[in-house]
């Protein structure tokens, strides 16, 4: 964690462009994961691997906004939403940033859809209610996410 968030380094690629990293205002370090952009479409179990449809900076911006808004479940996972653009190649409009197991690990994230990827991609009740309260989603969309229809 950075002690002084104001001096967070700017997000950047490493020299060979193989990964992207940045630090949020609260000091959380973030690294983009290549499998959520390139490579195989399906995992070994035949389940689709979520792929970002937005560029690296937009992915990082989603993380920073999620961190800033504290769209966070009890398990520590952060969740993001963008109502203006599609985040994933399969039409996902929400994203998930699983809480790292170790505090020193980097965060990462991927576009989320309970319909495509299952229950693990369903935002928790507290986050959904925040989004409804803030006018980001309707009650109908909340219900559809809760029923894994989106």
């Amino acid at each position: 964690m950075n002690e002084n968030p104001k001096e967070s380094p700017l997000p950047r690629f490493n020299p060979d462009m193989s990964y992207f990293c940045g630090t949020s205002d609260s000091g959380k370090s973030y690294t983009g994961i290549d499998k959520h952009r390139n490579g195989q479409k399906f995992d070994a179990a035949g389940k689709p691997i979520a792929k970002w449809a937005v560029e690296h900076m937009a992915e990082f911006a989603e993380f920073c906004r999620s961190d800033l808004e504290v769209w966070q479940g009890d398990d520590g996972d952060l969740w993001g939403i963008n109502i203006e653009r599609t985040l994933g190649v399969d039409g996902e409009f929400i994203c998930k940033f699983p809480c790292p197991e170790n505090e020193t690990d980097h965060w990462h994230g991927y576009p989320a859809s309970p319909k495509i990827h299952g229950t693990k991609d369903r935002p928790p009740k507290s986050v959904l209610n925040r989004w409804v309260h803030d006018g980001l989603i309707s009650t109908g969309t909340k219900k559809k996410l809760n029923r894994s229809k989106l």
Partner: protein
Amino acid sequence: MKLFKLFLPGEFEDAFLYKERLLVMTVDKELRAYDLEGLARRLAEKSPSSVPAPYWLFARNDFIGTNQFRKFVEADAIAKAVAGAFGAMPSMLDDITHDLPLLDQFRLDAFDCDMVLDLTIYNDRMYLATDEGLFHIDFDFSRKVPKILALHKRSDIHSMAVSAKYGSVSVSCGDDGLWIAEGDFEQSKEERPTSLAVKAERSVMTNWWTQSLVNYEAYNSPKLLAGERRRSSASLEGLSVVELGKTLFPIGALVSEKAGIETNQIDYIFNFSKKFFVHSIDGSIYDIEVLDKDKKRQRSVEPSEHEVQRVYKFEVPAALPYLLGAQDKELVRPKSARELTGDTPLPKDAFGQRLSLSFKDSIVSSGHTRVGTVIESRQRVQFLHDEGFLDLLNHEAITVRTFMQSKFYGNMVAVVDEDGLWLISVFDERVLNPTAAIARRRLGQGTVFTSTSSFLTTLKQKTV
């Protein structure tokens, strides 16, 4: 096809029609019971010339879909009188608050959940799938004002869908599995309810396929759990309770293979009994019927004994949208047909061409009525019948329900949106003009007209 829409303003989560009552769940978890016959009476009082249409549309919706009704209106004079009554009935009432008698309302304080995700009523028991688990409420419907007998919490698992038939209830809990209570009425309602047992690893919704259960592991992936009858003390629907096996048969693969659709090209599939509604990623819509190979066998349980009997792809003659465009604004014209309008002349072969009815949005839910299918996408709700689409709602719905299993409400749709509840009754007015009905049915289902004049002659006959 004629739609009659009534609107009840309010903040609701869900609604259900059962035994002449409208049951509505509010966002504050208050359950309200309204009197549908009282509603029809009030509408009749306000518009006497519309009688008996309010009763046929909203109190007992079954009669207008029966063969008796078709026979009844065969006589021209009766058909004219009935058409007059339906014509006098307003096609939309935007606030029925004062027309809909409230029978009672129940505060469900013990009902600890954030949101009702699905509900159904079966054998006077309301099952509620919620984000905090499954609940059931037992009612006494024997009196005009229903009474709550008991409320039970059945599970703590986030439950996204529930269905009930043949004495069993099945609860879909996503990656937490499919949970079923077989013989849910074998104990008396005063006793502790039957326990739920897990039957499949994943489930987003279920529906019955005669005595077997179709479990949807995803919205495009149905699998069949074969069921067998067994003796029971609590016999429902004239049958013993069904006991489900453990083997999952990929019925979706059978349907897609026979219909010539790649499994990975299916966007959405749902069944009503043995009829599958299929929507492909390219927007095509199919109605696929699966029947026993041996038709004499009424209740075979082995999936291998079944085959696809009928595949119907929704399509219309290319000329139909063009020629109906000016007269029938409700018909949603496919894009390619829309291009025929304006200054562009009708192509010579338009009467030989057929256009697939296309629905490009991803489908969120579907439900059958006796005269068509209700399709919900994220931003609208539409009614698909054999001539095209009708708009039910042009914005997002919270809940869409049809009542094909009910005796009285087979042609009714309940749609809850952010502002209230739409109660929609669908009437196939073609029955009042059999000649035109035959012509239009032919237009929609395969007769190719060889000339513009024969087409227009037929078309004119449809206008009452």
